[in-house]
């Protein structure tokens, strides 16, 4: 029942019934105001992030000029932090599609205020991820040889290589999620066009494409969003599977595992949903969106994170059990490294940072208190990043011929470039939240049309109408 002693049952539910008290124009203003008024904190944040990004770009230029040797890579650890962070960003990108496409198809109304923030997270995470296949190339100025175009060298890229699958799959996902983000944005661009002036007006007018809100336009938009939602789900499932096959198609011990594809996908959902929760808590505070992002949204998101975490545990154990049982010498040595060897601190960090949040999220208090949810979900992503570290770097340090075992130590170049993408993501996201209405206003208003309060016995409950 009601766990808030001060709020009467009725007021608690009206607050929940998607802002019935507010007029449409009030909602518009509440969403547009934080976009237009930017305080000093915003500019300090942007300046700091830009500084980190600039330093990272310098480090990348240094890398291109001097060669990959300025990183810590060696034989046999040919792939290190760049590929780790690449996999991490692809993982983060999965949550956006989960929320907007899957929940839209399931008609889960609590997704309404979150979809745009989630889709933006996907698009920017993919942009950051897409940088890494370029950054880690030994001769990045020849990257275009991976593109299939007829040329007088009569050479063609190799479509059997998982890196080519990566190229097309990530491009597809990036194009798909950007178009999805934009399509759902058009009515809100029209709203912003109608309420702003000057440079903003010009931008919104261009992006709104002349949207008026006629019934035909809404009908077509709905149909397109429905098709998009269905089409983007196989894409997002396949992208991380393809990235996992970068590892699984080799005969490297511990990479050569058939469970990699679903393991990575579930891990991505876990990591991405946690990142989404982190971002939502921060944006809610920074843009004063407390009215739109309420406790029931975090509650539902927290439950999803917990379920994803349980799925991750299952797939991790399914892979680990088989490796441990098989007793293959090199795999046994790799496991020994993690459990009681030099990699043990990272391994226990990974396990605790992935398991503790699953337990904590079982408590409603943790899910609905923003500060606690922020801490828990940050911990999840620390654990998931460490997991990718151990898979990529930890496995490569050992292989079938012991003479070829090695150790890896990162350098400032790699760390700077990794930091560059984190700062770049945050920068893009911050700028996005100021240029585009963060909350999908039309979807919230659409949700309001469907909700009423109904009395069942002594309870006053919100009911949703079963209309499309």
């Amino acid at each position, binding site marked *: 029942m009601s766990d808030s002693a001060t709020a009467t049952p009725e007021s608690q539910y009206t607050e929940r019934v998607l802002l019935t008290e507010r007029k449409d124009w009030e909602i518009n203003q509440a969403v547009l105001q934080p976009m237009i008024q930017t305080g000093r904190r915003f500019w300090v944040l942007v300046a700091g992030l830009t500084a980190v990004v600039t330093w990272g770009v310098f480090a990348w230029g240094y890398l291109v000029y*001097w*060669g990959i040797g300025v990183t810590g890579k060696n034989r046999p650890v040919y792939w290190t932090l760049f590929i780790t962070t690449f996999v991490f960003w692809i993982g983060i990108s999965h949550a956006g599609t989960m929320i907007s496409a899957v929940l839209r198809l399931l008609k889960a109304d609590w997704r309404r205020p979150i979809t745009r923030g989630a889709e933006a997270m996907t698009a920017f995470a993919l942009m950051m991820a897409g940088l890494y296949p370029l950054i880690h190339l*030994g001769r990045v100025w020849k990257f275009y*040889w991976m593109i299939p175009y007829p040329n007088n060298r009569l050479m*063609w890229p190799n479509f059997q*290589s998982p*890196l080519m699958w990566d190229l097309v799959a990530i491009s597809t996902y990036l194009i798909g999620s950007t178009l999805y983000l934009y399509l759902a944005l058009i009515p809100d661009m029209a709203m912003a066009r109608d309420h702003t002036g000057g440079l903003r007006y010009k931008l919104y007018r261009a992006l709104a494409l002349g949207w008026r809100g006629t019934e035909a336009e809404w009908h077509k938009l709905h149909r397109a969003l429905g098709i998009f939602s269905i089409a983007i789900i196989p894409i997002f499932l396949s992208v991380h599977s393809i990235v996992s096959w970068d590892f699984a198609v080799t005969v490297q011990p511990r990479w050569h595992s058939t469970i990699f594809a679903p393991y990575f996908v579930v891990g991505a959902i876990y990591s991405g949903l946690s990142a989404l929760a982190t971002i939502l808590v921060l944006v809610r505070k920074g843009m004063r969106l407390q009215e739109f992002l309420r406790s029931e949204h975090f509650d539902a998101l927290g439950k999803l994170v917990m379920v994803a975490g349980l799925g991750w545990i299952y797939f991790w154990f399914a892979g680990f059990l088989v490796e441990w049982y098989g007793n293959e010498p090199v795999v046994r040595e790799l496991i020994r490294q993690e459990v009681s060897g030099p990699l043990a601190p990272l391994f226990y960090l990974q396990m605790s940072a992935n398991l503790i949040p699953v337990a904590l999220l079982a408590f409603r208090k943790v899910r609905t208190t923003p500060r606690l949810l922020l801490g828990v979900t940050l911990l999840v992503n620390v654990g998931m990043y460490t997991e990718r570290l151990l898979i990529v770097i930890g496995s490569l340090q050992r292989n079938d*011929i012991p003479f070829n075992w090695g150790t890896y130590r990162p350098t400032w170049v790699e760390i700077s470039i990794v930091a560059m993408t984190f700062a770049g993501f945050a920068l893009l996201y911050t700028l996005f939240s100021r240029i585009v209405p963060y909350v999908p206003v039309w979807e919230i208003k659409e949700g309001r049309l469907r909700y009423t309060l109904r009395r069942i016995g002594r309870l006053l409950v919100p009911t949703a109408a079963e209309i499309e």
Partner: protein
Amino acid sequence: MKPSAETKPRWALVVDLDRCTGCQACVVACHAENNVPVAGESLTAYGRWMHWIIIDRYWEGEYPNVKARFMPVMCQQCGEAPCEPVCPVFATYHNPEGLNAQIYNRCIGTRFCGNACPYKVRTFNWFRPEFPEPLTEQLNPDVSVRSRGIMEKCTFCIQRIRSVEMKARAEGRAPADGEIQPACVQTCPPGALLFGDLNDPASRVSQLARSHRSFRLLDELGTDPAVIYLKGGETNV
């Protein structure tokens, strides 16, 4: 039956571990023949040596009863090479003579092949190789000098194979057994390395491949390597 112009050869290397003394003359010869740069002591300690052939060495026992177990390892020129399908730009492919060919100017440096090779015989140019004067006078004009960002590995001295084949074809015959000698084979003082055509049953390497001492490295992985080792006596593997 001698191979005629119609049957393609399959080049193979035989390493007789009973004869190998671990003197590393093959390593030096390979560096000289193939313009392989020297990485230096600190980079080598970090695992960034550039040797295309390297003597894998393991220490056994405690002083004063220490034994060294060693074997020369180079690109095994696998028949079913795991490094070939993973290159996104076909910088490594399987040529009709059974060699795993590396095309230097096609490589964009993803290093996927390095991860996929179970023998870890592929080396990467981490920096632009420096050949301090007067070593530049010694560079082999038959082999390209690689810049940074390119993977490289033992090629069975394909430049020597080609030059002998061309000379033989100009004389209207096939290369004789033992006529083609990669740099390491030519240099090896005790004669532990032998090179020849596995498809010719009469060649020396074919006969040795049928020896009871023969084994191949990591055979259980199914890579079908073209390097055949002959088991040694006590001092070696």
